């Protein structure tokens, strides 16, 4: 067994297999609420735990797929380019919306953490929960926080954002595709963007735009906070 699991092929096969089979079930059954990413994650974790397969074995192949997150982020420029007119038309609304979202992210983490009596170390680890993983890790380092906690918080945020966004936006009566996309990208980065892309091309493009702008804004605000001696 060890010879099979401790090879690049194992992680790649397991990931491709799970994602394909769940997507297939989703298409055939019409259950659009099935989230292939969330379900694949749960199934792979179960297989690793029940099969007593070390995480390092899975990540031999998993790391290959993980490395492709770089190019996947790069090509998010394409939907932006396709919607460049919309971008210019709504530039002030876009900047205003993203900046208010980023400020609310940082303020809400600080206020909630203090209300719940969490230590400052945890609070610092959660500051970047809404930004894209690579920047979140960078922020965590800047704040001398725990990278692992930051990654978990980013994953929970992304999965949550992707699942509640359609419902929340309906509840708040937000109908403009620009507002929908921006709010998803600002709150739940690239993971939420997978849902925004399903909602429509404009939503997807705006969500993709928000990932980059929100992440940059968060970094700038944290630098400012550090400069002011807050952290």
């Amino acid at each position, binding site marked *: 067994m060890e010879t099979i699991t401790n090879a690049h092929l194992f992680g790649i096969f397991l990931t491709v297999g799970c994602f394909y089979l769940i997507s297939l079930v989703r298409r055939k059954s019409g259950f659009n609420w099935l989230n292939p990413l969330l379900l694949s994650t749960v199934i792979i974790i179960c297989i690793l735990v029940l099969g007593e397969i070390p995480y390092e074995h899975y990540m031999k192949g998993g790391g290959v797929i993980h490395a492709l997150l770089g190019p996947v982020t790069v090509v998010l420029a394409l939907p932006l380019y396709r919607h460049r007119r919309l971008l210019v038309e709504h530039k002030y609304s876009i900047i205003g919306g993203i900046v208010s979202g980023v400020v609310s992210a940082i303020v809400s*983490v600080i206020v909630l953490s203090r209300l719940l009596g969490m230590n400052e170390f945890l609070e610092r680890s959660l500051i970047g929960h809404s930004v894209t993983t690579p920047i979140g890790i960078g922020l965590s380092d800047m704040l001398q926080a725990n990278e692992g906690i930051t990654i978990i918080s980013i994953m929970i945020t992304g999965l949550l954002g992707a699942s509640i966004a359609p419902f929340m936006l309906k509840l*708040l009566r937000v109908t403009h595709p620009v507002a929908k996309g921006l709010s998803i990208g600002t709150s739940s980065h690239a993971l939420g963007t997978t849902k925004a892309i399903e909602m429509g091309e404009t939503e997807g493009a705006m969500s993709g735009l928000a990932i980059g702008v929100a992440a940059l804004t968060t970094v700038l605000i944290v630098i400012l906070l550090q400069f002011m001696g807050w952290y």
Partner: protein
Amino acid sequence: MKVFKQLFIILGINLAGDLLSRYLHLPIPGSITGMILLLVLLLTGVLKEKHIRETADFMIQNMGFFFIPATVGVLVSYHALDGYYFQTALVVVLSTVIVLSVTALSTQLLINLKEKWKR
């Protein structure tokens, strides 16, 4: 051939972004620098949409797949939260709901204000 050409361009831009971020000491990761770089290349017409279209669309439409190993990584890092599971989950969930609502409502408000202004 086409897929290789497109991959070559996309990976090249990612690599260029990594180099720029590292050597200019930018506070943003190379993939984001690469995204900005690709946008600039498309806007200036140096690259055409057809140079990356099929590969880029495949990656965007199946983005969830590329996140699976990162989310499986929770399996090894959850211990750091010992004793604070409930509080952490509560902060993250509430904060996400707040950010989503604030961004959506403020953007919609600004767009509506602008459209009223125009009339």
